[in-house]
């Protein structure tokens, strides 16, 4: 057994991980989530805004991190729609445009009373990374002469009086890397003291925690926080519990639990094999 485990082919580990993730998905295993204090900070930042407040929804992620970030983006969208906030979507990643369209599809399907141009709009993608942030914080119309669909921004009612991102009451950023939350903190939240919350991938989250609470009100780190935030939104607006797509993050916590247990067991097993090998004087 020792010899087998010591030279275990990594493909067996992949197969085990496939089974660990696939089984809870097929069995639809879910667990209750209790929103943490950090998640409630994010929730309250949106919840405490008065109706009609302007929120910049900066979606900076692409399909590669969709599994982790789409639940957050959808929950932010639903929460802002429930609060009747004005949503301005924009993207610094070219492939974030379909992600924005997915969020807008939620508004069209679940909130048909909300109107494009009055309650929400899609500014679309602009290349230039943090350069775009630097421009829109002082003059949004310099870069965004039209919305994503080619309509002149001066003809869109909710752009009345919006000359820069400084007009926003809150910035909500969902980010998978650079440019993303770090750049929004560096060029908007810190120098202009703008209120900001963010959702980030697990890889990114540890680098962003130091910005809390001075530069970031709160951060949703990885799928666990996404699930907690979904739960917080459902607690606040219980009718959302009937919508299956409003619980995407909650649903993905089943595979997380089994997958993590497997990883922990594999780490323990690898260490046991290492110490047995050392005791035996095995140099390999």
């Amino acid at each position, binding site marked *: 057994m020792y010899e087998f485990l010591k030279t275990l082919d990594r493909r067996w580990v992949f197969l085990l991980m496939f089974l660990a993730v696939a089984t809870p998905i097929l069995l639809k295993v879910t667990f209750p989530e209790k929103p943490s204090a950090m998640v409630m900070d994010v929730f309250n930042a949106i919840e405490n805004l008065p109706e009609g407040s302007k929120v910049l929804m900066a979606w900076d992620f692409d399909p590669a991190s969709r599994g982790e970030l789409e639940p957050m983006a959808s929950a932010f969208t639903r929460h802002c729609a429930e609060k009747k906030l004005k949503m301005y979507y924009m993207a610094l990643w070219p492939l974030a445009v379909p992600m924005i369209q997915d969020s807008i599809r939620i508004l069209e399907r679940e909130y048909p009373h909300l109107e494009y141009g009055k309650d929400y709009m899609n500014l679309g993608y602009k*290349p230039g990374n943090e350069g775009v942030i630097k421009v829109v914080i002082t003059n949004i119309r310099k870069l965004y002469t039209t919305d994503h669909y080619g309509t002149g921004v001066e003809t869109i009612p909710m752009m009345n009086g919006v000359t820069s991102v400084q007009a926003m009451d809150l910035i909500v950023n969902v980010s998978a890397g650079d440019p993303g939350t770090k750049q929004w903190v560096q060029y908007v939240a810190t120098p202009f003291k703008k209120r900001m919350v963010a959702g980030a991938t697990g890889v990114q989250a540890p680098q962003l925690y130091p910005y809390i609470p001075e530069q970031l009100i709160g951060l949703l780190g990885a799928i666990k926080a996404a699930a907690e935030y979904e739960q917080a939104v459902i607690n606040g607006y219980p009718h959302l519990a009937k919508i*299956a797509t409003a619980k995407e993050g909650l649903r*993905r916590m089943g595979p997380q639990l089994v997958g993590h247990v497997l990883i922990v067991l594999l780490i323990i097993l690898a260490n046991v094999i290492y110490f047995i090998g050392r005791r035996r004087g095995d140099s390999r």
Partner: protein
Amino acid sequence: MNNRANAIWAIIFVVAAIFLGWRIATGNFGRVYVKSQQVTVNADDGSVAASWETHTKVPPRDHQEEGVSLSIPRTIGLWAGAILTLCIFSFLYGDNPFYKTAESIVVGASAAYLMVIGFWTQIIPNLIGNIVPDWTRTWATPGLDPEAKADYVYLLPLMLSIMLLWRLAPVGGWISRWPLAFFIGATAGFRLIGFMEADFVAQIRATIIPIWVKDAAGGVDIWASIGALTMIVGVISCLIYFFFSLEHKGVVGKTARLGIWFLMVTFGAGFGYTVMGRIALLSQRLEFLFYEWLWLDSPTADAVSGTASLIMPALGG
């Protein structure tokens, strides 16, 4: 791998192939149904200003409802997404031509997508649209501000762009170094300010906090105090670990060693978060394969198709 392992893997692949074969034979998977709806926008005088048809994805169980039809482009997209996902997953078994093909498609499609997006979102509205706005409005962006006047300052970035592309010319490649130097200098200055303000000054300020944190009643909040103390000790010990002007021995050495422990905990947290992220990505892909492609009883039958929703608009579905 030994023969026994090869045999087990062969059995796994055969079982998967039989399952797929069974699904294909029964025909109960891999189709996308849509409901079509006519949208009409009336002008102020009541005439039809614009009219178009929208296609909304419906759950397979509703495919016999009125107005629901099979969407061929979306079905092709669904199969393309599923096959490409399996091709990428095949790399876990080992490098192979299927993986290489899928990888090349991703790289090629991404490059083309970026070029098209860059052209229509930057070059047309922000460069050409500013230099010749009237002409741009006639053929590219009718929504451009009718009051817009030509702004010839934008000839400067146009000139820099041409100089940058000059490196492709057989002679005078050095010309591209000037705009490159401009971009590097501007970017460096630009980022320096952001980092100085948000990551240096603001972070120092955020570290200057009381160690004894008081609660609302005026007493000492033990856990908040422990948190504050841990943060301050962590910052100082990590800074000392990276301070190489003093030899790491004695008090300095012990503090630097504590700094290593803090760093290890940070790396561990990063690793844990990364695992969580990767499992989330895997579970999303498996949900796509199980529910959207194989129709294994979706919990979100009304879900917007993942990969298909990205590909289909491009195919007109």
